């Protein structure tokens, strides 16, 4: 049972990590690619971390929850990174795909 849970979590995590990078690889402009890594940093890494927490909680005596910290750090930092990269890209006028809509306030 435990193994199944772990395996599924791990696969989910790896899958979303991969999806993120696929997005990074194949999407057509910078701003779209920017969405890729957020997959990886949220569900991708998150699921794997949960698998790890469960794994080590059962493997060792105590409960292993410190994996939460990585998630916490990622949740704080990844969006800021994205924000700054986007800001930088806008600043240096990185091209957008033509169909990008510009919606006014």
């Amino acid at each position: 049972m435990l193994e199944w849970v772990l395996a599924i979590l791990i696969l989910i995590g790896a899958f979303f990590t991969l999806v993120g990078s696929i997005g990074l690889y194949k999407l057509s402009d910078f701003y779209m690619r920017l969405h890729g890594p957020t997959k990886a940093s949220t569900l991708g890494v998150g699921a794997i971390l949960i698998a790890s927490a469960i794994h080590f909680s059962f493997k060792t005596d105590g409960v292993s929850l410190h994996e939460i910290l990585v998630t916490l750090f990622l949740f704080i930092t990844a969006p800021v990174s994205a924000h700054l990269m986007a800001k930088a890209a806008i600043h240096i006028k990185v091209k957008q795909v033509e169909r990008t809509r510009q919606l006014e306030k």
Partner: protein
Amino acid sequence: MLNLALSLAFIMVGLAILLSFIRLIIGPNTPDRILALDTLYINSIALLILLGINLQSALYFEAALLIAVMGFMGTLALSKYLLRGDIME
């Protein structure tokens, strides 16, 4: 079961790293490359945690934690460089 899942996961994450790295190589813009590096950092976290499970060792956790912090710092600095040139002012 778990081993199979791990092997599959390793391959998927490896592929993710490969794709991110290809993006880093082809660019075309600097923000793309920064983004690719950032993604590589995040992929590495996944890889490390998987490695930890694989090797049954909790000793790799701190590395993952640090990657989260340091990857952020790198992206922060690089982006700020694009924005302002002078990253500390």
